[in-house]
């Protein structure tokens, strides 16, 4: 043991570590070549787009590239400087530039994110911009007197740098007041925080429901004889093989107020014609449909864990004097924890980012954050805000992943 610290060598004197590395090099190269296509695919289709999206959430140059003179003026004059003639001169020069480059709309849209109603100011003022004569302040204000609103200047100052955290502020229902300090947005305009909370609470509810419903099925699958288990497994997997859209629309058929379930309740006399229950286009609809769609994702990891638990554990507990409930709680349940963790985490992550089902059956109060991200991507075209929302969603998921790792340990996760 004394020479354990001395450098070990091979029989012909080469250092052992170098010899080992050389002997493994070929194998390692071959292994790398095997995974290279997948690696490239993931890089191009996954890592790069995500990186680009994250970049967009704090980098937006639509205004700063369209208004170089204003950017220069904001650089020269710190926050709180008086908006004087030189500032208006820069504005007039930039508006003229915007007219020439046809960028007034885009730049206006960027400022419009912060101060609504400003986009038209840019387009209309820019139209006349090349006719402005000094003094520019009077000329600009004569055209549109709202230009002296300090809020607009504050928004332009912050947009004059392409790097900004304004989108994250917006995603958290925060904004800057005219003095530049961070304040909550007006009561009626706050939407994202509630939406995040709703997404979170709905995801937790859906995860809990999936685990509650999936546990007995998975147990049944694990203890039934092979042939019956196969049949049951097909029933579990059947929804997997059906189109997501078909499954969601069939829930619409079942749950809507003129739907099958309500018809049956009315027919059975449990509710009357006017008392039809609203089960669709609200949170209930989203939760029911998503639980159904995500259920297999809990059943499969649970099943794979339960399959490995020999029945002798529960038998041993019973023979040692435990009632069947105690045996379940103290012996069986703890051993299924890796499956509960894996299934729960999987469903939770999927639910957090779910889009189609809430979009179709969610109505107004069953919408989730992903629907808002899609809205900003497709309708409002505020990609930076969409990116900021998505980045926050990603962060929340990663936080949950981290918590799971600390509590259960990611190495204990079994997906099947």
């Amino acid at each position, binding site marked *: 043991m004394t020479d354990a610290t001395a450098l070990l060598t091979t029989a012909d004197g080469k250092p052992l570590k170098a010899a080992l590395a050389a002997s493994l090099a070929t194998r390692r190269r071959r292994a790398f070549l095997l995974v290279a296509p997948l690696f490239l695919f993931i890089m191009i289709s996954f890592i790069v787009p995500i990186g680009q999206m994250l970049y967009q959430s704090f980098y937006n140059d639509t205004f700063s590239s369209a208004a170089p003179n204003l950017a220069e003026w904001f650089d020269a004059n710190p926050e709180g400087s008086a908006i004087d003639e030189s500032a208006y001169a820069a504005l007039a020069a930039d508006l003229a530039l915007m007219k020439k480059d046809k960028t007034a709309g885009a730049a206006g849209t960027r400022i419009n994110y912060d101060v609504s109603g400003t986009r038209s100011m840019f387009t209309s003022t820019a139209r006349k911009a090349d006719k402005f004569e000094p003094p520019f302040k009077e000329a600009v204000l004569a055209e549109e007197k709202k230009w002296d609103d300090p809020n607009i200047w504050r928004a332009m100052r912050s947009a004059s740098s392409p790097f900004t955290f304004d989108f994250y502020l917006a995603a958290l229902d925060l904004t800057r007041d005219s003095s530049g300090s961070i304040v909550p947005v007006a009561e009626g305009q706050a939407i994202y925080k509630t939406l995040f909370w709703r997404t979170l609470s709905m995801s937790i509810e859906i995860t809990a429901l999936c685990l509650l419903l999936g546990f007995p099925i998975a147990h049944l699958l694990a203890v039934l004889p092979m042939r019956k288990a196969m049949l049951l497994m097909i029933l579990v997997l059947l929804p997997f093989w059906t189109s997501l859209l078909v499954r969601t629309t069939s829930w619409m058929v079942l749950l809507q107020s003129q739907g099958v379930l309500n018809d049956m309740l009315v027919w059975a006399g449990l509710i009357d014609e006017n008392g039809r229950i609203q089960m669709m286009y609200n949170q209930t609809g989203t939760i029911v449909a998503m639980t159904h769609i995500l259920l297999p994702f809990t059943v499969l990891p649970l099943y794979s864990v339960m399959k490995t638990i020999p029945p002798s554990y529960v038998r041993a*507990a*019973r*023979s*040692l*004097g*435990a*009632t069947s409930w105690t045996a379940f709680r103290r012996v069986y349940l703890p*051993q299924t924890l890796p499956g509960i963790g894996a299934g729960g985490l999987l469903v939770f992550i999927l639910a957090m980012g779910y889009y189609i089902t809430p979009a179709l059956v969610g109505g107004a109060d069953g919408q989730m954050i992903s629907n808002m991200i899609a809205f900003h991507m497709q309708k409002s075209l505020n990609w930076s805000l969409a990116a900021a929302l998505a980045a926050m969603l990603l962060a929340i998921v990663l936080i949950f992943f981290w918590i799971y790792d600390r509590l259960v340990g990611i190495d204990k996760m079994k997906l099947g």
Partner: protein
Amino acid sequence: MNTAATDDGFVVFDHVQKSYDGETLVVKDLNLSIGKGEFLTMLGPSGSGKTTCLMMLAGFETATHGEIRLAGKNINDMPPHKRGIGMVFQNYALFPHMTVGENLAFPLEVRGMGKSEREAKVMRALDMVQMGKFANRRPAQLSGGQQQRIALARALVFDPELVLMDEPLGALDKQLREHMQFEIKHLHETLGITVVYVTHDQGEALTMSDRVAVFNDGRIQQLAPPDELYERPQNSFVAQFIGENNKLPGTVETLDGDSCTVRLATGELIDATPVNVRSVGQETLVSIRPERVEFKADMMPPGAHMVDAEVLEVIYMGDIFRTRMRVAGTEDFVMKSRNTLGQTKLRPSEKIKIGWHPQDARALEPM
């Protein structure tokens, strides 16, 4: 043997039958009475119904018909956790998410025992199996033999009067198995508990038990102390299953009380003890233990018949020579002779004469 308990019917199987599918019986009319303090082994090939019997006794299977009594009480409808029977499982079934100490405390905890009393009992049980230092380990950190001891301690920690063991030593290597056999036997003697032990290893059954019940085809073929089982098998299955055995088919030539002669297929005449043959001319299977076969005429009782044999192969096994030879048309007749100083060395294709004491050859009814 040494603690040969009087059979007071502590555990009774009364006309017990068991069927899983309603078409075939796994256990056919089982009647068995086990005395308090007895070490009874259920021995048999897999599928003979021995484990099913154990599971019915533990309460994990219900008897299709008949009654199982424990200390005079019918326990057919009693759930397993109320039976108070300790059980050692084949794969030990130690709870992997609990430490050794928690595993042992489990049966005490569910009985509502206080913490200090619990700890004292756990320590005592661990010391009993010489595992006192391992209370804080997890089962996965223990070797097979250590896990086995913990399983044993856990089955004993709540002082059950009856302990069931389902092939508890099956996963251990030979040396450890023999050591554990001795330890289990020792624990049984010092604690005075009743043990029902299931195994398919006949060596284990013979070394440990007071009585052995040999199972085959859902029935007890013979219930007897080990020596009687080995030396006086009641039928050809038991003779075959316990130890190595030579069998010679033939017909009964003469039958006179407790001795008979049997005419072999090749026309030779041998001496035997009739066990379950009843008449002259009946087909029979004569069973002879390999170590009871002699090839030196001076070792034979006077007037005993001897038969021709041709040596086919001699295997050196250290303490014994195992000689396979052709006798009366069969080629797997085996003789075991001790490797003593001056033992005659036999060679293949050597022609010799062999014989045995008439009481060592048992004429049984063919199966």
